[in-house]
């Protein structure tokens, strides 16, 4: 396995371990037991993978390593976020304490959490994604080889077509 997969797996384990800490529910538990948690105060920890400001509030999508859940937070809280997780970034690790809705009446029936308390536990970071030089060189060589072969075979075929067949007696 490559470094990328290893680092992702490590990060996912960290998040899973953090969510299994006392008091925090995993996203999967919340989704699979929505009826039991509906209207109750829950704690969710995870990585920020999306922020969208909507007036005085914002949607913050939080991924706990397995399942992502939308969290409705005040703008001033959302602005504490430094990094949103994507290929080049590890998003901030946050803790949300708020009211869980199985089908939120305010947000078109979405499953969400309305945050009462929003804390950034660990600031995310930029990821180094170095180019694998041997693979890069191999890819360039293969591409050049494929194009050369295609052009050469096309040339040979055309030359063959030009040849006049020798009549047999």
């Amino acid at each position, binding site marked *: 396995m*490559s470094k*990328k*997969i290893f680092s*992702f797996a490590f990060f*996912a384990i960290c998040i899973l371990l953090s969510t299994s800490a006392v008091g925090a529910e995993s996203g999967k538990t919340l*989704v*699979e037991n*929505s*009826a039991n948690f509906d209207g109750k105060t829950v704690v969710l920890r995870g990585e920020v*993978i*999306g*922020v*969208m*400001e*909507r007036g005085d509030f*914002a*949607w913050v*999508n939080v*991924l706990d390593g397995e*399942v*992502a859940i*939308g969290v409705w937070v005040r703008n001033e809280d959302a602005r504490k976020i430094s990094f949103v*997780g*994507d*290929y*080049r970034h590890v998003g901030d690790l946050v803790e949300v304490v708020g009211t869980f809705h199985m*089908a*939120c*009446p305010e*947000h*078109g*029936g*979405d*499953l*969400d959490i309305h945050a009462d308390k929003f804390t950034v536990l660990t600031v995310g970071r930029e990821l180094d*994604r*170095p*180019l*694998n030089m041997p*693979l*890069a060189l*191999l*890819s*360039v060589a*293969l*591409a050049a*080889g*494929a*194009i050369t*072969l*295609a052009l050469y*075979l*096309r040339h*040979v*075929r055309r030359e063959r077509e030009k040849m006049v067949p020798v009549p047999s007696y």
Partner: protein
Amino acid sequence: MLFLIPPLEKEDLKIIGHSLSNICYLSGALLLLPIIVAVVYEEFDVIPSFLIGSAASIFFGSLLSFFLYTKREMEVKHAVVMAAVAWLVAPFFASVSFWLANALSSYLDALFESVSGFTGTGLTVAVNIDHLPRSVNFLRHFLQFVGDGIGIIVISLSILGKTEISSVLAFKGEAKDTGIRPSIVRTSRIIVGIGLTFLIIGTSLFTIAGLKEGLDFGTAFFEGLNLSMTGYATGGFTPHSQNLLYYHSFWFEVVAIILMVVGALNFNLHYAVLGGKRGEILKNMEVKILLLWLLVVGSLVSANLLFVGLYPSSEALFRKGVFQAISAQTTTGFQTVYPYHLMFMWPVLSVLLLVAAMVSGGCANSTSGGIKMLRVGMLLKSLVREIRQALMPKSAVVTGSFHHVEDTPLTDKMVRGAATIALSYLILFSIGTLITVGHGYGLEDSMFETASALGNVGLSSGITSPLMPATLKAVYIFLMWAGRLEIMAIFVLAGFIILGLRKGIKE
């Protein structure tokens, strides 16, 4: 009956192989496009994976083109077999890129994702979609647009092929055999033109919606482009693991509905409407049945959800119930509900209605899958005709007709063809369900996931994941492939292979 069929000749293999070379060349060229995205987003480390996939495709194509070169024209059998093989060959090269980019956890997963993309299914086994390179994510969506949205096989042949005949026949192989216009090059241009028009409209609408809903311009445009490609292609891939739930937006869902419905309509209808025949929308039998069926499924699902009190408002019923019904019927697979909720909290009736919608599908000659509304319409008309015949005197002859761009008499041959496809579909659906149940999943989940794979839908009950058994992944790859080819091409390919094995290949 096998003795009546002439044996295969070496020339047959050459015709198929040479046509496949065009598909390989085009796949190779298309795999270079994500490199632009990788450069824009500075994802230089994944560029080699696209280059290698592209090089492999061009390399294979040039060998086929050289060693299987022939000037002979295609016949129907060649076109059908070529289409069946092409829908495996093209995903193969894209899967090489997915695999080398470490986007998926195994090569089988990479192939699954690639087949799901090319066939416009949308079931995903990607481990962590939210952290995928943008260029890889672009490739996932782009595959659905070129594979299912504009039909890569016809396009490749009409652009790179020598004549139009091969393309007309390939069109038959892809089960889009009621051509829009006599000229296939013109037809291909129209299909590409329609696709690009809706891509531009969809991207613009999603970008506006994204800006309104708090995304920055770059993200709104990029994600809008991706969602438009898969929305129009009725594919269903999205750039995030939460699917459309990620955006928490009514407007995103409205734009998605527009694209899904447009994608599920017949290309002939688009062409007729663009040509000024606006009344065709209301007269066309297939459209009438699609809209009626959408209304019935959407209303029943909403009423059922209202009855069990799962959602608190009419807006929620629309955004969850009606949206999922449209997504299933158009065979798109965009989801606004967590798979777990769909299977374990939604009432059984609603789930079964979605299964029925996925099996019946959208219009023929569209980007959607399933049995297709044209066939459903023919079978219903035939049923009515039979009932009328039974009630009439013995000497009376009852005829039937339907309007599909033009008034068409309903012949027994048409009904037989529709019934054969529908029956084959239901047999494969039953076998797929049984195999899934055999892997330890519940009947309801198994029916749902099988209908989704075979109908090239992409809605998931949660079965499809990187952790699902490898044998089931292989079965779903087969179902997605068979569903995309509307099954008959698979039988022809099987017949072709059996013929070769039994009678050998003549020089």
